[in-house]
């Protein structure tokens, strides 16, 4: 073996070893197994530059009921019937995000191993994110370039009949217009549908301090063909 081939082999083995460590690190937490990412994020529609990494952070925490921070649905209004071949633009707003509000102190003690103190948002993981991306496990939804900063909204449409989730959309903007196939999904689901929008404020895909997730107000409506 020449020095050059030895070096090549050594580099390849090192890369494999590093990758194996990263893969192992991505799934080893003996005391609290991670939910399967693929199940967690399966079928989610991404819009407005929202990212799967941010969504994972949002889904890891139970939403809190803070009325001022709740997403209020403007369209469709509660009790509406939506008809037509093309989907309308769904719209919402935050009730009073910049209003005169006081948030309760709900910081956990620093070293308490709570479920939302997850690996995904650790400083080290953020620092080594590019390397993890390169060598680590493949992510299902490599979403869209820049990390999410600002508010992200998870729209969950459920069928009121059987509480089945019909569709989930994760977006950073305050509107969502279903495309034809998505509109058909809503039209053909058991009616009525209920839409709930959970939101949080992100900084580089991580939920910022005291910034959610916040539960939204549901709107129940009918989509007819």
């Amino acid at each position: 073996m020449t020095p050059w081939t030895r070096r090549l082999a050594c580099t390849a083995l090192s890369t494999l070893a590093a990758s194996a460590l990263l893969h192992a690190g991505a799934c080893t937490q003996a005391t609290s197994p991670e939910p399967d990412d693929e199940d967690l994020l399966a079928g989610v529609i991404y819009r407005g530059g929202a990212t799967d990494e941010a969504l994972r952070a949002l889904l890891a925490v139970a939403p809190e009921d803070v009325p001022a921070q709740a997403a209020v649905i403007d369209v469709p209004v509660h009790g509406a019937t939506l008809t037509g071949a093309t989907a309308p633009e769904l719209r919402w707003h935050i009730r009073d995000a910049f209003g005169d509000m006081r948030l309760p102190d709900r910081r956990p003690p620093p070293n308490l191993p709570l479920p939302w103190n997850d690996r995904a948002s650790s400083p080290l993981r953020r620092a080594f994110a590019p390397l993890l991306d390169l060598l680590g496990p493949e992510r299902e939804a490599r979403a869209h370039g820049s990390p999410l900063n600002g508010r992200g909204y998870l729209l969950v449409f459920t069928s009121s009949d059987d509480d089945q989730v019909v569709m989930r959309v994760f977006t950073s903007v305050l509107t969502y217009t279903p495309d034809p196939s998505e509109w058909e999904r809503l039209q053909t689901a058991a009616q009525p549908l209920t839409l709930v929008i959970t939101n949080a404020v992100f900084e580089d895909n991580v939920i910022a301090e005291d910034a959610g997730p916040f539960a939204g107000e549901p709107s129940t409506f009918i989509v007819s063909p």
Partner: protein
Amino acid sequence: MTLRVPSAALVLSLGWATVVGCSGGDDGNTPTSGEGGSGAHNPTGGDGGQGGQGGQGGDDAQPFDWGLPPGFPRPKVPTDNPMSTVKVELGRRLFYDQRLSGTGDFSCASCHRQELAFTDGLALSVGSTGEVHPRGSMSLANTGFISALTWANPLLDTLEEQALVPMFGEEPVELGLAGKEVELLERLAADPLYQELFPAAFPDDSDDDGPLTLKNITRAIAAFQRTILSYRSPFDRYTYGGDPTAMTPSALRGRDLFFSEQMECFHCHGGFNFSDSVTHDGSTFTEVMFHNTGLYNIGGTGAYPEGNTGLREITGLAADMGRFRAPTLRNIAVTAPYMHDGSVATLDDALDHYGSGGRTIPDGPHAGVGSDSPFKSELLLGFTLTPAERDDVKAFLESLTDDKLLTDPRLSDPWTETP
């Protein structure tokens, strides 16, 4: 090319990080605020959002209400200079006080005017003695989040230290206080207002010098600067506040372009502050980055005008030619002219520069094709915009203007206020 200063440390610690990254000993939300301190853990609310203590450690630390909305980061505060309302007020007085200059007619605010997002509107700043600087005045909006201050100095990382540069710097002269330290202290000590404010802001300073010291002057100014916070622009009201009426459709389309791989803007002007080299309360990894944007390529050598070569002046490295920090784009519509030397007059000119992947100067002493610079950032690939897209991008950039910041009475000149 892009320089990431801590890269060596990053590489050296790779093996260790690989092993411990998932060991369970490090959790993402564990508050590790360091200098930022306990403020992160005690939100007390505020005007439009959460407050929190700005500092920690000192016995005099009082809860400080930043008044920021939920999710907006808070500045990192040094442990030896905790925030307090009285200290901020003292800092505001000093910031606008013309007695802080050798000539007695110049202040920090002379080059950092509130209505211009704390810039001066000049291509190159002019000091108290009339000396023209090689660089333009940087915006102080959100300067409390910046991890490397000024245009190209990775060593200058606290506002307290930075304040000494304009006060006592001689090349160039800014406030012109070099050699006049005693005179300055005597001048301030004679003012009854300062006789009250300094002891109130620094109640634990009981040594022989008392609280009116150069160190405390810079501490107070730094505390005030940390409150120059831009977070109420139309972009913020839409993105953080969830107000669908805050941004126009054109600005929203421009936002999509700005954050697209087509334009690549967000790589250097990303995050909540539309800049890199950012740190804040709770952040544990501080990156410092500098970029050569192909503004000059004198004679095809990559050279920048002598005396204004950016990071190279600090490091002495040829590869650092023309590397400067990416400033925040917040309030960019009111901070023209642009670039470190103010050589780009308008937003349209700036878009032309980046769209071409570098500036071409056809003739004269600085002639050269910037896009061919051997030192240019690899992120500067150029882009093409239709006229409508250009309007959208400009509308987006204009949506970053925080009008409330430009008129906020808490940040205005206290010496002109009617008692």
